[in-house]
Protein backbone atom coordinates (compact mmCIF):
# COMPACT_ATOMS: atom_id res chain seq x y z
CA UNK A 1 0.00 0.00 0.00
CA UNK A 2 1.32 3.43 -0.89
CA UNK A 3 2.69 5.49 1.98
CA UNK A 4 3.25 9.20 1.54
CA UNK A 5 4.83 11.97 3.60
CA UNK A 6 3.13 15.34 3.41
CA UNK A 7 4.46 18.68 4.58
CA UNK A 8 2.21 19.83 7.43
CA UNK A 9 1.84 23.45 6.30
CA UNK A 10 1.33 22.54 2.64
CA UNK A 11 -1.25 19.90 3.51
CA UNK A 12 -3.34 22.14 5.80
CA UNK A 13 -3.12 25.00 3.30
CA UNK A 14 -4.60 22.72 0.63
CA UNK A 15 -7.17 21.37 3.08
CA UNK A 16 -8.20 24.90 4.03
CA UNK A 17 -8.10 24.27 7.78
CA UNK A 18 -5.75 22.98 10.45
CA UNK A 19 -6.66 20.15 12.81
CA UNK A 20 -5.23 18.01 15.59
CA UNK A 21 -4.09 14.42 15.23
CA UNK A 22 -7.26 12.88 16.65
CA UNK A 23 -9.52 14.77 14.24
CA UNK A 24 -7.22 14.09 11.30
CA UNK A 25 -6.99 10.38 12.10
CA UNK A 26 -10.76 10.12 12.13
CA UNK A 27 -11.19 12.20 8.97
CA UNK A 28 -8.59 10.21 7.04
CA UNK A 29 -10.91 7.20 6.99
CA UNK A 30 -12.93 8.94 4.24
CA UNK A 31 -9.84 8.65 2.04
CA UNK A 32 -9.39 5.02 3.13
CA UNK A 33 -6.20 6.29 4.70
CA UNK A 34 -4.45 5.97 8.04
CA UNK A 35 -2.31 8.37 10.02
CA UNK A 36 1.07 6.65 10.08
CA UNK A 37 3.04 9.24 12.05
CA UNK A 38 3.23 12.96 12.83
CA UNK A 39 6.15 14.20 14.87
CA UNK A 40 5.42 17.63 16.32
CA UNK A 41 7.86 17.71 19.25
CA UNK A 42 11.20 19.29 18.53
CA UNK A 43 10.51 19.99 14.84
CA UNK A 44 9.85 23.46 13.44
CA UNK A 45 6.32 23.75 12.06
CA UNK A 46 7.47 24.39 8.48
CA UNK A 47 9.56 21.21 8.58
CA UNK A 48 6.94 18.92 10.10
CA UNK A 49 5.87 15.94 8.09
CA UNK A 50 2.65 13.94 8.38
CA UNK A 51 2.95 10.30 7.32
CA UNK A 52 -0.14 8.83 5.67
CA UNK A 53 -0.79 5.29 4.50
CA UNK A 54 -3.26 4.87 1.63
CA UNK A 55 -5.16 1.60 1.66
CA UNK A 56 -6.85 1.94 -1.72
CA UNK A 57 -4.40 0.57 -4.26
CA UNK A 58 -6.73 1.58 -7.08
CA UNK A 59 -7.01 5.31 -6.35
CA UNK A 60 -3.76 6.88 -7.59
CA UNK A 61 -5.40 10.31 -7.31
CA UNK A 62 -5.08 9.96 -3.52
CA UNK A 63 -1.33 9.31 -3.41
CA UNK A 64 -0.25 12.93 -3.08
CA UNK A 65 -0.59 15.82 -0.64
CA UNK A 66 -3.12 17.57 -2.87
CA UNK A 67 -4.94 14.31 -3.53
CA UNK A 68 -5.58 13.46 0.11
CA UNK A 69 -6.44 17.10 0.86
CA UNK A 70 -8.91 17.14 -2.06
CA UNK A 71 -10.71 14.05 -0.79
CA UNK A 72 -10.98 15.36 2.79
CA UNK A 73 -11.98 18.87 1.64
CA UNK A 74 -14.68 17.48 -0.62
CA UNK A 75 -16.08 15.46 2.28
CA UNK A 76 -15.96 18.36 4.77
CA UNK A 77 -17.58 20.89 2.44
CA UNK A 78 -19.83 18.62 0.38
CA UNK A 79 -18.78 20.46 -2.79
CA UNK A 80 -17.30 18.52 -5.70
CA UNK A 81 -14.17 20.09 -7.18
CA UNK A 82 -14.61 21.52 -10.68
CA UNK A 83 -11.58 21.82 -12.93
CA UNK A 84 -12.30 24.18 -15.79
CA UNK A 85 -9.18 23.24 -17.75
CA UNK A 86 -10.56 19.90 -18.87
CA UNK A 87 -11.84 20.32 -22.38
CA UNK A 88 -15.42 19.50 -23.11
CA UNK A 89 -17.11 18.52 -26.32
CA UNK A 90 -17.12 21.55 -28.63
CA UNK A 91 -14.71 23.52 -26.42
CA UNK A 92 -11.27 22.58 -27.67
CA UNK A 93 -8.84 25.46 -27.98
CA UNK A 94 -5.92 25.76 -30.33
CA UNK A 95 -2.52 24.80 -28.94
CA UNK A 96 0.09 27.49 -28.39
CA UNK A 97 2.82 25.03 -27.57
CA UNK A 98 3.05 21.55 -28.97
CA UNK A 99 4.89 18.29 -28.62
CA UNK A 100 5.12 16.33 -31.85
CA UNK A 101 4.95 12.61 -31.25
CA UNK A 102 7.02 10.87 -33.92
CA UNK A 103 5.97 7.49 -35.31
CA UNK A 104 9.38 6.12 -34.31
CA UNK A 105 8.22 5.79 -30.68
CA UNK A 106 5.36 3.43 -31.59
CA UNK A 107 7.27 0.17 -31.02
CA UNK A 108 8.90 1.27 -27.77
CA UNK A 109 6.79 3.77 -25.79
CA UNK A 110 3.97 5.15 -27.93
CA UNK A 111 1.91 7.48 -25.72
CA UNK A 112 2.46 10.97 -24.37
CA UNK A 113 0.36 13.53 -22.55
CA UNK A 114 1.39 16.82 -21.04
CA UNK A 115 0.52 20.33 -19.94
CA UNK A 116 2.16 23.66 -19.34
CA UNK A 117 1.60 25.57 -16.11
CA UNK A 118 2.80 28.79 -14.54
CA UNK A 119 2.02 31.43 -11.99
CA UNK A 120 3.79 30.43 -8.82
CA UNK A 121 7.36 30.03 -7.63
CA UNK A 122 7.78 26.43 -6.51
CA UNK A 123 8.81 26.02 -2.85
CA UNK A 124 11.04 23.34 -1.39
CA UNK A 125 8.02 21.56 0.12
CA UNK A 126 6.12 21.65 -3.20
CA UNK A 127 9.10 20.38 -5.15
CA UNK A 128 9.59 17.48 -2.74
CA UNK A 129 5.89 16.75 -3.02
CA UNK A 130 5.99 16.76 -6.84
CA UNK A 131 8.90 14.32 -6.77
CA UNK A 132 7.05 12.08 -4.32
CA UNK A 133 3.92 12.16 -6.52
CA UNK A 134 6.05 11.19 -9.48
CA UNK A 135 7.57 8.29 -7.53
CA UNK A 136 4.31 6.94 -6.12
CA UNK A 137 2.34 7.32 -9.33
CA UNK A 138 4.97 5.82 -11.61
CA UNK A 139 6.07 3.07 -9.24
CA UNK A 140 2.66 1.73 -8.21
CA UNK A 141 0.18 2.81 -10.86
CA UNK A 142 2.80 3.05 -13.61
CA UNK A 143 4.17 -0.41 -12.81
CA UNK A 144 7.72 0.71 -12.00
CA UNK A 145 7.64 3.32 -14.81
CA UNK A 146 6.92 0.63 -17.39
CA UNK A 147 3.41 1.84 -18.25
CA UNK A 148 3.73 5.46 -17.03
CA UNK A 149 6.64 7.77 -16.28
CA UNK A 150 6.60 11.49 -15.58
CA UNK A 151 8.91 14.44 -16.12
CA UNK A 152 8.89 18.12 -15.07
CA UNK A 153 10.87 20.75 -17.01
CA UNK A 154 11.74 24.43 -16.87
CA UNK A 155 9.86 26.23 -19.63
CA UNK A 156 12.39 29.04 -19.88
CA UNK A 157 14.97 26.72 -21.43
CA UNK A 158 12.67 24.92 -23.89
CA UNK A 159 12.59 25.75 -27.62
CA UNK A 160 9.21 24.78 -29.07
CA UNK A 161 7.92 22.63 -30.63
CA UNK A 162 9.25 19.73 -28.59
CA UNK A 163 9.75 16.42 -30.34
CA UNK A 164 9.10 13.00 -28.81
CA UNK A 165 10.95 10.43 -30.89
CA UNK A 166 13.03 7.26 -30.66
CA UNK A 167 16.72 7.06 -31.53
CA UNK A 168 19.55 4.55 -31.65
CA UNK A 169 21.11 4.25 -28.15
CA UNK A 170 24.52 5.61 -29.21
CA UNK A 171 23.21 8.43 -31.40
CA UNK A 172 22.23 10.89 -28.67
CA UNK A 173 24.11 12.14 -25.64
CA UNK A 174 23.47 14.71 -22.91
CA UNK A 175 24.32 15.43 -19.28
CA UNK A 176 21.79 13.53 -17.16
CA UNK A 177 20.57 14.73 -13.75
CA UNK A 178 23.09 13.95 -11.05
CA UNK A 179 26.08 13.73 -13.42
CA UNK A 180 28.53 16.30 -14.71
CA UNK A 181 29.55 14.78 -18.03
CA UNK A 182 27.82 14.09 -21.32
CA UNK A 183 26.81 10.45 -21.73
CA UNK A 184 25.11 8.61 -24.56
CA UNK A 185 21.88 6.74 -23.88
CA UNK A 186 23.58 3.36 -23.70
CA UNK A 187 26.10 4.61 -21.13
CA UNK A 188 23.31 6.17 -19.07
CA UNK A 189 21.54 2.81 -18.93
CA UNK A 190 24.75 1.06 -17.90
CA UNK A 191 26.20 3.60 -15.46
CA UNK A 192 23.58 6.02 -14.10
CA UNK A 193 21.79 4.77 -10.93
CA UNK A 194 18.38 5.39 -12.57
CA UNK A 195 19.60 3.68 -15.73
CA UNK A 196 20.49 0.57 -13.74
CA UNK A 197 17.20 0.72 -11.84
CA UNK A 198 14.89 1.15 -14.84
CA UNK A 199 17.01 -0.18 -17.68
CA UNK A 200 14.97 -3.39 -17.73
CA UNK A 201 12.18 -1.45 -19.47
CA UNK A 202 14.32 -0.71 -22.53
CA UNK A 203 16.97 -3.41 -22.62
CA UNK A 204 15.30 -5.42 -25.37
CA UNK A 205 14.37 -2.41 -27.54
CA UNK A 206 16.36 -1.36 -30.59
CA UNK A 207 15.59 2.35 -30.31
CA UNK A 208 15.05 4.37 -27.15
CA UNK A 209 12.74 7.32 -26.48
CA UNK A 210 13.95 10.91 -26.32
CA UNK A 211 12.33 14.29 -25.71
CA UNK A 212 14.15 17.12 -27.40
CA UNK A 213 13.54 20.78 -28.15
CA UNK A 214 13.47 22.47 -31.57
CA UNK A 215 17.12 23.50 -31.01
CA UNK A 216 18.13 19.90 -30.28
CA UNK A 217 18.39 20.55 -26.51
CA UNK A 218 17.46 17.36 -24.71
CA UNK A 219 14.70 17.47 -22.06
CA UNK A 220 14.89 13.84 -21.01
CA UNK A 221 15.40 10.22 -21.83
CA UNK A 222 12.03 8.73 -20.80
CA UNK A 223 11.41 6.74 -18.66
CA UNK A 224 14.96 6.84 -17.27
CA UNK A 225 16.25 10.32 -16.46
CA UNK A 226 15.86 14.06 -17.08
CA UNK A 227 18.60 16.28 -18.42
CA UNK A 228 20.75 18.24 -16.01
CA UNK A 229 19.57 21.61 -17.39
CA UNK A 230 16.05 21.71 -18.92
CA UNK A 231 15.03 18.86 -16.65
CA UNK A 232 16.57 20.20 -13.43
CA UNK A 233 13.72 22.03 -11.69
CA UNK A 234 14.85 24.22 -8.79
CA UNK A 235 13.13 25.97 -5.91
CA UNK A 236 11.89 29.33 -7.19
CA UNK A 237 11.15 28.23 -10.79
CA UNK A 238 7.70 29.40 -11.93
CA UNK A 239 6.87 27.89 -15.31
CA UNK A 240 6.81 24.20 -16.08
CA UNK A 241 6.14 21.61 -18.69
CA UNK A 242 4.84 18.40 -17.13
CA UNK A 243 4.73 15.34 -19.37
CA UNK A 244 3.92 11.68 -19.12
CA UNK A 245 4.98 8.92 -21.46
CA UNK A 246 4.05 5.29 -21.39
CA UNK A 247 2.84 2.11 -22.92
CA UNK A 248 -0.83 2.36 -21.92
CA UNK A 249 -2.80 5.30 -23.22
CA UNK A 250 -5.45 5.28 -20.50
CA UNK A 251 -2.88 5.16 -17.67
CA UNK A 252 -0.87 7.97 -19.25
CA UNK A 253 -3.97 10.15 -19.65
CA UNK A 254 -5.26 9.47 -16.15
CA UNK A 255 -1.86 10.22 -14.62
CA UNK A 256 -1.71 13.53 -16.48
CA UNK A 257 -5.19 14.40 -15.24
CA UNK A 258 -4.33 13.59 -11.64
CA UNK A 259 -1.17 15.68 -11.59
CA UNK A 260 -2.90 18.53 -13.46
CA UNK A 261 -5.53 18.67 -10.71
CA UNK A 262 -2.82 18.57 -8.04
CA UNK A 263 -1.01 21.55 -9.56
CA UNK A 264 -4.28 23.43 -10.05
CA UNK A 265 -5.11 22.91 -6.36
CA UNK A 266 -1.66 24.20 -5.46
CA UNK A 267 -2.40 27.48 -7.25
CA UNK A 268 -0.99 26.99 -10.73
CA UNK A 269 -2.85 28.11 -13.81
CA UNK A 270 -2.70 26.96 -17.38
CA UNK A 271 -0.17 28.95 -19.34
CA UNK A 272 -1.20 27.35 -22.57
CA UNK A 273 -2.79 24.28 -23.92
CA UNK A 274 -0.42 21.63 -25.01
CA UNK A 275 -1.46 19.10 -27.58
CA UNK A 276 0.09 15.89 -28.63
CA UNK A 277 -0.76 13.53 -31.44
CA UNK A 278 -2.04 10.74 -29.27
CA UNK A 279 -3.71 12.54 -26.45
CA UNK A 280 -5.73 14.76 -28.76
CA UNK A 281 -7.73 11.73 -29.83
CA UNK A 282 -8.84 11.10 -26.26
CA UNK A 283 -11.94 12.42 -24.53
CA UNK A 284 -9.62 13.35 -21.62
CA UNK A 285 -7.89 16.26 -23.36
CA UNK A 286 -6.38 19.05 -21.33
CA UNK A 287 -7.05 22.55 -22.50
CA UNK A 288 -6.41 26.05 -21.28
CA UNK A 289 -8.40 27.44 -18.41
CA UNK A 290 -11.05 29.76 -19.84
Amino acid at each position, binding site marked *: *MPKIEVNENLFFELLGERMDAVTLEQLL*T*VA*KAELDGWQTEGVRQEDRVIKIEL*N*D*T*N*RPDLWSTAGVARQLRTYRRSVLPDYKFFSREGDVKKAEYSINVDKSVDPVRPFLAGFVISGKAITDAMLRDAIQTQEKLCW*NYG*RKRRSVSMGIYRISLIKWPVRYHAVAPESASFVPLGMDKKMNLRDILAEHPKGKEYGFILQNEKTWPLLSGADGGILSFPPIINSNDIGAVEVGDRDFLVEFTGT*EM*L*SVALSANIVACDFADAGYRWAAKLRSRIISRLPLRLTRDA
Partner: protein
Amino acid sequence: VETEFWNGDALFMPQFHAARDIHDVYYVADPTRAKSIEEPYLSRVAGVHENGGATGSRGWNYGFDRDFTKRLVLRSQGTVLSARQLPKASVPGKYFGIARCFRYDKVDATHLSDFYQTEGIVLGDDVNLRTLLGFLEMFAVEVAGAKEVKYVPGYFPFTEPSVEIHIKHPVLGWFELGGAGIFRPEVTEPLGINVPVLAWGIGIDRMALMALSLNDLRELFSYDIENVRLRRAKGN
Protein backbone atom coordinates in the same frame (compact mmCIF):
# COMPACT_ATOMS: atom_id res chain seq x y z
CA VAL B 1 -3.40 -25.52 -2.06
CA GLU B 2 -5.10 -23.22 -4.56
CA THR B 3 -4.46 -21.93 -8.05
CA GLU B 4 -3.70 -18.27 -8.74
CA PHE B 5 -6.96 -18.39 -10.70
CA TRP B 6 -9.21 -18.99 -7.70
CA ASN B 7 -6.94 -17.29 -5.18
CA GLY B 8 -6.85 -14.01 -7.08
CA ASP B 9 -7.94 -13.90 -10.74
CA ALA B 10 -11.56 -14.93 -10.11
CA LEU B 11 -11.66 -12.21 -7.42
CA PHE B 12 -10.74 -9.56 -10.01
CA MET B 13 -7.32 -8.99 -8.49
CA PRO B 14 -5.07 -7.99 -11.39
CA GLN B 15 -2.21 -10.41 -11.92
CA PHE B 16 0.26 -7.56 -11.30
CA HIS B 17 -1.40 -6.63 -7.94
CA ALA B 18 1.12 -5.96 -5.17
CA ALA B 19 -0.58 -8.44 -2.81
CA ARG B 20 0.18 -11.19 -5.34
CA ASP B 21 3.87 -10.55 -5.13
CA ILE B 22 6.14 -13.50 -4.50
CA HIS B 23 7.01 -11.93 -1.13
CA ASP B 24 3.43 -12.07 0.13
CA VAL B 25 2.17 -15.45 -1.03
CA TYR B 26 3.57 -18.94 -0.45
CA TYR B 27 4.22 -20.73 -3.75
CA VAL B 28 4.20 -24.52 -4.07
CA ALA B 29 7.63 -25.73 -5.22
CA ASP B 30 6.54 -29.01 -6.80
CA PRO B 31 4.31 -29.33 -8.74
CA THR B 32 4.20 -25.67 -9.71
CA ARG B 33 1.07 -25.64 -11.84
CA ALA B 34 -2.42 -27.07 -12.05
CA LYS B 35 -3.12 -28.98 -15.29
CA SER B 36 -6.06 -26.80 -16.30
CA ILE B 37 -8.61 -24.27 -15.08
CA GLU B 38 -12.34 -24.92 -15.40
CA GLU B 39 -14.16 -23.43 -18.38
CA PRO B 40 -16.16 -21.33 -19.07
CA TYR B 41 -14.85 -19.56 -15.96
CA LEU B 42 -11.28 -19.21 -17.23
CA SER B 43 -12.32 -17.46 -20.45
CA ARG B 44 -14.91 -15.26 -18.77
CA VAL B 45 -12.53 -14.17 -16.01
CA ALA B 46 -9.75 -13.53 -18.54
CA GLY B 47 -12.17 -11.36 -20.53
CA VAL B 48 -13.19 -9.37 -17.45
CA HIS B 49 -9.53 -8.67 -16.61
CA GLU B 50 -8.68 -7.66 -20.16
CA ASN B 51 -11.63 -5.45 -21.09
CA GLY B 52 -14.46 -5.91 -18.60
CA GLY B 53 -16.08 -8.72 -20.58
CA ALA B 54 -19.87 -8.51 -20.45
CA THR B 55 -19.98 -6.43 -17.24
CA GLY B 56 -19.76 -2.91 -18.65
CA SER B 57 -16.50 -2.43 -16.72
CA ARG B 58 -13.29 -1.33 -18.46
CA GLY B 59 -11.43 -4.20 -16.82
CA TRP B 60 -7.76 -3.86 -15.90
CA ASN B 61 -6.53 -3.39 -19.48
CA TYR B 62 -3.71 -5.88 -19.72
CA GLY B 63 -3.07 -9.23 -21.36
CA PHE B 64 -4.29 -11.97 -19.02
CA ASP B 65 -1.57 -14.58 -18.42
CA ARG B 66 -3.13 -18.03 -18.85
CA ASP B 67 -0.02 -19.79 -17.57
CA PHE B 68 0.40 -17.71 -14.39
CA THR B 69 -3.26 -18.40 -13.53
CA LYS B 70 -2.42 -22.12 -13.14
CA ARG B 71 0.37 -21.45 -10.59
CA LEU B 72 -0.17 -23.31 -7.31
CA VAL B 73 -0.12 -21.25 -4.11
CA LEU B 74 -1.19 -21.68 -0.51
CA ARG B 75 -4.61 -20.05 -0.10
CA SER B 76 -3.98 -16.49 1.06
CA GLN B 77 -7.56 -15.36 1.67
CA GLY B 78 -10.81 -17.00 2.72
CA THR B 79 -12.69 -15.24 -0.09
CA VAL B 80 -11.46 -18.06 -2.33
CA LEU B 81 -14.14 -20.27 -0.77
CA SER B 82 -16.81 -17.79 -1.79
CA ALA B 83 -15.50 -17.53 -5.35
CA ARG B 84 -15.57 -21.31 -5.64
CA GLN B 85 -19.10 -21.42 -4.20
CA LEU B 86 -20.62 -18.82 -6.53
CA PRO B 87 -20.93 -21.03 -9.66
CA LYS B 88 -23.02 -23.55 -7.68
CA ALA B 89 -24.85 -21.10 -5.39
CA SER B 90 -28.65 -20.75 -5.24
CA VAL B 91 -30.46 -17.43 -5.20
CA PRO B 92 -31.43 -16.48 -2.56
CA GLY B 93 -28.73 -18.23 -0.58
CA LYS B 94 -26.44 -18.03 2.43
CA TYR B 95 -23.10 -19.81 2.60
CA PHE B 96 -20.53 -19.97 5.36
CA GLY B 97 -17.13 -21.54 5.63
CA ILE B 98 -13.99 -21.62 7.71
CA ALA B 99 -10.72 -21.35 5.84
CA ARG B 100 -7.13 -21.65 6.93
CA CYS B 101 -5.11 -19.00 5.13
CA PHE B 102 -1.39 -18.49 4.67
CA ARG B 103 0.47 -15.25 4.22
CA TYR B 104 4.07 -14.29 4.48
CA ASP B 105 3.64 -12.00 7.50
CA LYS B 106 5.91 -10.95 10.33
CA VAL B 107 4.56 -12.73 13.42
CA ASP B 108 3.47 -10.40 16.24
CA ALA B 109 0.59 -9.95 18.72
CA THR B 110 -2.02 -9.50 15.97
CA HIS B 111 -0.38 -11.26 12.97
CA LEU B 112 0.46 -14.92 12.31
CA SER B 113 1.79 -16.48 9.11
CA ASP B 114 -1.25 -18.73 9.01
CA PHE B 115 -4.67 -17.80 10.30
CA TYR B 116 -8.31 -18.80 10.11
CA GLN B 117 -11.01 -16.75 8.48
CA THR B 118 -14.72 -17.24 8.62
CA GLU B 119 -16.04 -16.53 5.22
CA GLY B 120 -19.61 -15.82 4.31
CA ILE B 121 -21.73 -14.77 1.39
CA VAL B 122 -25.40 -13.86 1.19
CA LEU B 123 -27.03 -13.75 -2.24
CA GLY B 124 -30.37 -12.14 -2.94
CA ASP B 125 -32.29 -9.53 -4.87
CA ASP B 126 -33.08 -7.57 -1.74
CA VAL B 127 -29.79 -7.54 0.19
CA ASN B 128 -27.77 -4.34 0.53
CA LEU B 129 -25.08 -2.60 2.58
CA ARG B 130 -27.39 -2.21 5.60
CA THR B 131 -27.99 -5.94 5.63
CA LEU B 132 -24.23 -6.48 5.51
CA LEU B 133 -23.50 -4.08 8.40
CA GLY B 134 -26.09 -5.96 10.46
CA PHE B 135 -24.29 -9.26 9.90
CA LEU B 136 -20.93 -7.72 10.75
CA GLU B 137 -22.23 -6.23 13.98
CA MET B 138 -23.61 -9.63 14.95
CA PHE B 139 -20.17 -11.19 14.57
CA ALA B 140 -18.48 -8.38 16.49
CA VAL B 141 -20.94 -8.16 19.37
CA GLU B 142 -22.48 -11.61 19.72
CA VAL B 143 -19.53 -13.79 18.74
CA ALA B 144 -16.47 -11.72 19.61
CA GLY B 145 -18.16 -9.99 22.55
CA ALA B 146 -16.98 -6.51 21.57
CA LYS B 147 -18.53 -3.53 23.34
CA GLU B 148 -17.32 -0.91 20.89
CA VAL B 149 -17.58 -1.43 17.13
CA LYS B 150 -16.88 0.89 14.21
CA TYR B 151 -17.04 0.67 10.44
CA VAL B 152 -14.32 2.16 8.28
CA PRO B 153 -14.48 2.60 4.48
CA GLY B 154 -12.22 -0.07 3.00
CA TYR B 155 -10.74 -1.23 -0.24
CA PHE B 156 -10.66 -4.74 -1.62
CA PRO B 157 -10.29 -5.43 -5.33
CA PHE B 158 -13.31 -7.73 -5.32
CA THR B 159 -15.94 -5.59 -3.55
CA GLU B 160 -17.54 -2.19 -4.04
CA PRO B 161 -18.48 -0.66 -1.69
CA SER B 162 -16.04 -2.14 0.82
CA VAL B 163 -15.98 -1.80 4.58
CA GLU B 164 -13.69 -2.83 7.42
CA ILE B 165 -15.08 -3.67 10.82
CA HIS B 166 -12.97 -2.62 13.79
CA ILE B 167 -13.45 -3.49 17.46
CA LYS B 168 -11.90 -2.06 20.61
CA HIS B 169 -9.84 -4.46 22.68
CA PRO B 170 -9.27 -3.48 26.34
CA VAL B 171 -5.49 -3.84 26.04
CA LEU B 172 -4.59 -3.79 22.33
CA GLY B 173 -6.97 -0.95 21.45
CA TRP B 174 -8.78 -0.74 18.11
CA PHE B 175 -7.98 -3.44 15.59
CA GLU B 176 -9.53 -4.72 12.38
CA LEU B 177 -11.72 -7.75 12.86
CA GLY B 178 -12.36 -8.30 9.19
CA GLY B 179 -13.27 -6.94 5.80
CA ALA B 180 -16.50 -7.03 3.86
CA GLY B 181 -18.38 -5.58 0.96
CA ILE B 182 -20.64 -6.30 -1.97
CA PHE B 183 -18.97 -8.34 -4.71
CA ARG B 184 -18.22 -6.41 -7.88
CA PRO B 185 -20.02 -7.50 -11.05
CA GLU B 186 -16.54 -8.34 -12.41
CA VAL B 187 -16.50 -11.14 -9.79
CA THR B 188 -20.10 -12.36 -9.90
CA GLU B 189 -20.95 -12.12 -13.61
CA PRO B 190 -18.21 -14.48 -14.89
CA LEU B 191 -19.28 -17.01 -12.26
CA GLY B 192 -22.91 -16.86 -13.41
CA ILE B 193 -24.50 -14.72 -10.67
CA ASN B 194 -26.51 -11.57 -11.38
CA VAL B 195 -27.86 -10.51 -7.97
CA PRO B 196 -26.08 -8.58 -5.19
CA VAL B 197 -23.74 -10.77 -3.13
CA LEU B 198 -22.71 -9.65 0.36
CA ALA B 199 -19.33 -11.05 1.32
CA TRP B 200 -17.14 -10.94 4.38
CA GLY B 201 -13.98 -12.46 5.76
CA ILE B 202 -13.52 -12.25 9.50
CA GLY B 203 -10.48 -13.41 11.43
CA ILE B 204 -11.57 -16.18 13.78
CA ASP B 205 -8.33 -15.89 15.70
CA ARG B 206 -8.98 -12.20 16.19
CA MET B 207 -12.53 -12.87 17.40
CA ALA B 208 -11.01 -15.35 19.86
CA LEU B 209 -8.52 -12.74 21.02
CA MET B 210 -11.45 -10.57 22.06
CA ALA B 211 -13.83 -13.27 23.29
CA LEU B 212 -11.21 -15.04 25.42
CA SER B 213 -9.69 -11.79 26.76
CA LEU B 214 -6.24 -12.61 25.38
CA ASN B 215 -3.60 -10.00 24.69
CA ASP B 216 -1.57 -11.89 22.09
CA LEU B 217 -2.62 -14.14 19.19
CA ARG B 218 0.30 -16.45 19.91
CA GLU B 219 -1.38 -17.50 23.18
CA LEU B 220 -3.97 -19.34 21.07
CA PHE B 221 -1.28 -21.87 20.25
CA SER B 222 -0.01 -22.35 23.81
CA TYR B 223 1.39 -25.68 25.03
CA ASP B 224 0.18 -24.83 28.54
CA ILE B 225 -2.83 -27.16 28.79
CA GLU B 226 -3.83 -25.89 32.22
CA ASN B 227 -3.91 -22.34 30.93
CA VAL B 228 -5.98 -23.37 27.89
CA ARG B 229 -8.45 -25.28 30.12
CA LEU B 230 -8.92 -22.33 32.47
CA ARG B 231 -9.27 -19.96 29.54
CA ARG B 232 -12.20 -21.92 28.13
CA ALA B 233 -13.96 -21.66 31.46
CA LYS B 234 -13.35 -17.93 31.48
CA GLY B 235 -14.61 -17.63 27.92
CA ASN B 236 -17.88 -19.30 28.85
